[in-house]
């Protein structure tokens, strides 16, 4: 049995004296699609920020593919095979769509900070970036500045940039936030396509998306996971219904 893709043990985080994450244990096996749901302010985004090292944990331990990564920097964690997206679109606005994706593939392909390679001569990087553009449906927008794309296009690019580097653990923070129903359906199909064979952990508000996409779901309430299970188990869990679903399906 191989190590889980992601393992959190007793992870805590306080901002000042306010505890936000109050002891989270979570194991995501390799290849699983795992969703984290919970009411507003439950700490879902904070949990993501801890796992991706945007913030340091106050205490606890985070393991990525069996290796402890607690206290590492974001770029070190990325180089170990974890990549994340952002809830608020977070791309390179003054670079072309193509260059956004190409920047994501240059590091893992070993070009790093090279100033002795000619970018346009790097066929492997270009072909990989073009393949990603094709798959996220932005090939026609290749040379457009990313900052002027439509919102849905920017969200697609966000996902493309996140998976382009070939990380095998992908964290998506609300990939369908702010989308219409039809846009959201397309985004779900995109997420499914792009994370094939990878470990996916996502935060999502839209219950339709969560129950359609996730293999397992964890429910985070006030900084603690109150339940983890398959969609059917979570739906049937009385504690979840009380704390979250039953009370506020409408505004979830």
């Amino acid at each position, binding site marked *: 049995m191989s190590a889980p893709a992601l393992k959190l043990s007793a992870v805590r985080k306080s901002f000042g004296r306010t505890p936000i994450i109050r002891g989270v244990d979570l194991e995501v096996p390799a290849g699983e699609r795992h969703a984290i749901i919970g009411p507003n302010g439950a700490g879902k985004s904070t949990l993501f920020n801890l796992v*991706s090292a*945007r913030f340091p944990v106050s205490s606890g331990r985070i393991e990525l593919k069996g290796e402890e990564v607690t206290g590492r*920097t*974001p*770029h070190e964690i*990325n*180089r170990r095979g974890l*990549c*994340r997206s*952002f809830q608020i679109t*977070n*791309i*390179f*606005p*003054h*670079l072309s769509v193509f*260059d956004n994706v*190409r*920047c*994501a593939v*240059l*590091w*893992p392909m070993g*070009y*790093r*900070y*090279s*100033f*002795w*390679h*000619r*970018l*346009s*001569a*790097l*066929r492997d990087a270009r*072909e990989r970036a073009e393949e990603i553009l094709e798959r996220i449906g932005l090939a026609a927008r290749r040379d*457009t500045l990313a900052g002027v794309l439509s919102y849905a296009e920017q969200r697609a690019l966000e996902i493309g*940039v996140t998976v382009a*580097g070939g990380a095998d653990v992908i964290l998506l923070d609300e990939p369908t936030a702010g989308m219409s129903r039809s846009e959201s359906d397309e985004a779900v199909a995109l997420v499914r396509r792009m994370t094939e064979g990878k470990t996916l952990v996502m935060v999502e508000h839209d219950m339709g998306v969560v129950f359609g996409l996730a293999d397992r779901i964890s429910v985070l309430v006030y900084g603690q996971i109150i339940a983890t299970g398959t969609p059917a188990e979570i739906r049937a869990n009385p504690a979840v219904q009380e704390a979250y679903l039953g009370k506020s399906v409408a505004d979830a």
Partner: protein
Amino acid sequence: MSGVPPVLNRRRLLGFGGFLLVIAAAPLVVSHGYALSLFCQIGVMTVFALSYNMLLGQTGLLSFGHAVYFGMGALGTIHALNAVSAGARWFPVTLLPLAGGAAGLLLGLVLGAVTVRRAGTTFAMISLGIGEMVAASSLMFPAVFGGEGGVSGNRVTGQGWFGVTYGPQLQVYYLIAGWAFVATVAMYALTQTPLGRVANAVRDNPERAQFLGYNPQRVRFLMVALGGFFAGIAGGLSALNYEIVTAEALSAHTSGAVLLMAYVGGAGTFYGPILGAAIITVMQVVVAGITKAWPFYFGLFFLVIVLYAPGGVAGVLQLHLRARRAGMLRRLAPAYLAGAGPVALLVGGTVTLVELAYAVVNRVEEGTARLRLPGLVLDSRTAPPWIGAAAAVLVGALLLRVVWKRISGRWAEIHAALAAEGRS
């Protein structure tokens, strides 16, 4: 689609070929000694401004202390030159700017390590502090910096090869032009490498770059060090040009000048700072030779650029090139023609007012209150010139307001048309 594009495409061939042609032919077209020394200065500043834009435009680092690399490069070169002159070392003068580059690179490696933790205001403030520190130490270590008098040298070190002794200014010009061309090509090439592109990514969004595996501090560090190298080469060229290096070279004044050059020329394009270096140098030298009020015009010009053309001269050019490619430049011509008159009134009136004011001030010193223009003498002690100039400014401004609406209306049409094209 899958082949590797050639290094020399049509655009680059035209751009760099044109650049090479201009710098090679400039002293043949205008060979006056005054023009030649002006060209030399532009060449030096071209390299300096481009090196500055590696930080400002490409990596998003606003530096107020870039002159320290320039000054150190100049000092490194002049000391190396003096060692060569004294016979202590043998080194061709042609390659001496490399000593400046090495000094700039070394300083960049040291200072880069401490300044790049953050971009934005933090970096700007640290660069200001370090600039002041280095400038202050120039008076504390006279052996290195030469104290008040600076360090001088003699660039003619021997018989030279094939008559190239760097005695005549024309030979120095071609030395500077050659280095400027090589350095420009090298800095352009850098923008086309993985580091160059990742620097843009770090400029746009350092956090996201970090989540893609890049260490933004490392990227900034490398760009500061390489920027220091090219600024050092510029300093070295200036040392060979003037044969003297004073504390001025690494002062806040020089740091400010290079910022203006990059900004006025346009930090958003590669070639913008070249235009900026030429424009600002010409203004500094030529306008200063015509009128004592030149710093005033200088400030006014900078203000106009910041307010009305934040993309700099290159930004304005770029806009018009886009319109031309879409075949819509002709639509602007009538509005621009209509604007020419009001602009002439406004500029003429403003200049007359400023010069009249200076004439009043100078009356005490030079016993004249008259402003001499070709074919016209204005007496600043009488009212009519003042009234006329003020009226010109007022009428010009009012007319320009009307015309401006037409111009911006045309631009709105062009932008709409371009956007529609981009969509389809």
